[in-house]
């Protein structure tokens, strides 16, 4: 489906062979949702696009949109990289995608709740029990705890990619402390300042109700329904790489931004230290990893935790989002079973498929993986941020040998996937529009109700040919425009 008006905006666009381009059809014409941006380029030319990128960069500095890198001494904040070219998706497609995402989160929550109670899914042999029980993300102290609505993972950041046919696939589920939503919101604020005419002319669906939806979801978890809940965001502090997001979300929701030293536990109640003395806390939106939450239960050397917090949660005195232990479903080995998990709990076919995945714990799969390391992407089961990944076609023999040894030593810890022809989108690189690979991280909420963000955070690998989109490793971002094609 391409735009009816013939444009020259993408003429000579150097497609990446074998990849689906988000904005440009194989004919070189813009796809329908990209018509407005294509017309803009036709009308004003490349030079104007460059000028807007400059304005955009200035806007980002002025707004102080940044992310924090470790080990750079005093100068810890980096300007957030945002490409001037948006990524466009038609609303009709997005409706189906978001239905698939909420379906997935519902099933994952039923799964987690089952694991910490009856473990029917293991008894029924849907997946091998040792996969779950040996996972370091299965937290035994959580067994028997019943959080409100049976929901454990309240906020999920699911990474989607498109294959060569343009079909969305789930690459991974982030159920621990997914980050990036503040950049989705700030990208939009920046783009509205930079392209006011495009927002006036086209039908871009707004994204800005997310903070309110997040607040509503958190409030629904309060152990004192009916009363105004006291909700706090628990951050590891100002030197954390996601501190910008923590402070941004706390401000957008009008809740307190607390560090562990601002909280105390007494008689299984959690209290905030305020200027007016103690205040009882009902809901904690924690951005601290499970194992650091409570030194009396998990890592005793944690300096980020609050002693007694776990017990207060287990007794239902305070809600914690995401609940401790929800990371058990955020494991690249469990991921391979999610389509079966959806069918088992919901009796439905998954609306969005997984990327085909080989489990190194399975003897047959392992044999295939070891024989085809140069073709596959191998990932450790429990890392995030793009660390520890082997991209077969771009690896050296030494790297492959090291990976083979690591797999043989600990097969449970690795999965492998075919090297995907990730979709591309035109990205401004040294003054030219060039295809760059990208993914999409929507944010899905579940409390009393379900909600899926409008689009999500599009992350783009800025280096030519690169598939690594993480901002800590040279990735950038794009504003994601869900274009209303139903009017």
């Amino acid at each position, binding site marked *: 489906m391409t735009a009816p008006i013939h444009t020259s905006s993408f003429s000579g666009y150097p497609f990446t062979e074998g990849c689906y381009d988000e904005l440009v059809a194989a004919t070189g014409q813009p796809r329908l949702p990209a018509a407005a941006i294509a017309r803009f380029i036709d009308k004003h030319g490349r030079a104007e696009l460059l000028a807007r990128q400059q304005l955009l960069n200035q806007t980002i500095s002025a*707004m102080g949109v940044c992310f924090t890198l470790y080990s750079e001494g005093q100068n810890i904040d980096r300007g957030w990289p945002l490409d001037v070219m948006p990524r466009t998706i038609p609303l009709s497609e997005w409706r189906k995608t978001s239905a698939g995402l909420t379906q997935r989160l519902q099933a994952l929550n039923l799964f987690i709740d089952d694991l910490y109670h009856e473990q029917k899914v293991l008894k029924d042999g849907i997946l091998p029990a040792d996969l779950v029980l040996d996972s370091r993300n299965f937290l035994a102290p959580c067994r028997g705890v019943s959080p409100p609505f049976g929901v454990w993972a309240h906020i999920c950041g699911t990474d989607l990619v498109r294959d060569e046919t343009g079909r969305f696939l789930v690459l991974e589920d982030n159920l621990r402390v997914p980050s990036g939503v503040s950049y989705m919101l700030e990208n939009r604020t920046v783009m509205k300042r930079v392209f006011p005419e495009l927002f006036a002319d086209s039908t871009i669906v707004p994204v800005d109700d997310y903070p309110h939806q997040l607040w509503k979801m958190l409030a629904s978890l309060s152990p004192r329904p009916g009363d105004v809940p006291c909700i706090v965001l628990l951050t590891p502090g100002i030197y954390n790489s996601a501190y910008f997001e923590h*402070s941004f979300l706390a*401000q957008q929701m009008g*809740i307190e*931004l*607390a560090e562990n030293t601002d909280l105390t536990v007494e008689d299984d109640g959690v209290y905030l230290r305020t*200027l007016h003395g103690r205040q009882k806390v009902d809901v904690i939106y924690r951005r601290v990893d499970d194992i650091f939450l409570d030194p009396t239960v998990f890592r005793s050397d944690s300096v980020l935790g609050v002693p007694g917090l776990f017990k207060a949660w287990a007794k239902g005195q305070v809600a914690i989002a995401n609940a401790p232990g929800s990371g058990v479903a955020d494991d690249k080995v469990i991921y391979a079973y999610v389509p079966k998990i959806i069918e088992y709990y919901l009796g439905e076919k998954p609306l969005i498929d997984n990327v085909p995945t080989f489990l190194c714990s399975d003897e047959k799969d392992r044999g295939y993986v070891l024989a085809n390391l140069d073709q596959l992407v191998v990932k450790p089961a429990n890392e995030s941020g793009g660390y520890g990944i082997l991209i077969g076609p771009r690896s050296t023999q030494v790297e492959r040998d090291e990976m083979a040894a690591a797999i043989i030593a600990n097969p449970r810890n690795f999965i492998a996937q075919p090297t995907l022809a990730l979709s591309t989108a035109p990205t401004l690189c040294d003054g030219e529009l060039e295809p760059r690979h990208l993914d999409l991280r929507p944010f899905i909420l579940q409390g009393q109700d379900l909600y899926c963000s409008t689009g999500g955070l599009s992350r783009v690998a800025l280096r030519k040919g690169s598939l690594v989109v993480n901002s800590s490793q040279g990735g950038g971002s794009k504003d994601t425009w869900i274009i209303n094609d139903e009017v």
Partner: protein
Amino acid sequence: MLLKSVEHIFWLGRYLERLDDTARLINATSHLLIDSHQDTQFGWPILLEVLGQDSKAILGTAAAAVDGEQGKLSVADTEKAVMAYLINAADSPVSILYTSSALKYNARTIRPLIPRDMWEELNALDLFLQQNCSMAVSRQQRYQLMSEVSRRCQMVVGVLDGTMLRSEAFDLFNIGRHVERADMTTRIMDVMVLQQLQPTQIKRPKFRWTSILNALGGVESYQHYVAHQAADVDAIDYLLTYADFPRSIAYCLNRVGASARGLPHSVSILQQVYQLQSLLQHQALAELSTEQLHSLIDHIQAGIISLHQAILAPCQAPLAAQTQQKSA
């Protein structure tokens, strides 16, 4: 509001005011010194003294760094060294750049309390300073630069005034600004006025020298003040007691008192404010001996320190304060 935030929002106000005051001080004094004004008995090092720094040590280090002439700085080099220390020296705890980092740090910590517009102004201020204050500049550029620093500080205050919730955070920010301002006015008086007056038992002379009022942006309003007072007054009366002048000690105390009323620990803050106010009210300043004037300024400085401590008292002993609240 979090107990921890009390300290950060208070310091945010103090540092913002300090940035503004430092920029004003640099400009006013520069004008004074390059004019070779007849009243001038100072050199550049006086600026370091006002900010509580050991000028001999700092200039000694600077002299050692200058090639050739060991131990002696020319006037031009002294000016350079003092300005570097006040604007961008990495090891200076009073430089504009240092103050800006401290401002940014505090703002970052309490970001959720700060309206977006103000956050953007603070950010723009910091970017501007990082870009423009990191290198030495000529006198003429310096004047423009310091005026711009002051102007941008005022923009932050203006944006905040127009957008921030009237909350305890707002009150503490304003308390911080006015404590800092009172502190700076006292420092200027201490160094630039008192150093001219040896402590004696005799009645102090009238202080006719008004040039330092430049540093406080108060020359015109001083003329207005003098023209409308029945009593025989001078710049000392004006800076200490004239509550209509927004940089006088009396004004700053009124503002601190008014902003403190809604705070849970207002009683101990107001106590300090009253003590300072009565120091000013119970003395006919014109009748003081120079020694008494010295002692009065000492008392005011000590009072400002106690005031600062009273404001931050709840944060200093968080556990004790919590226990007290619990039993109440």
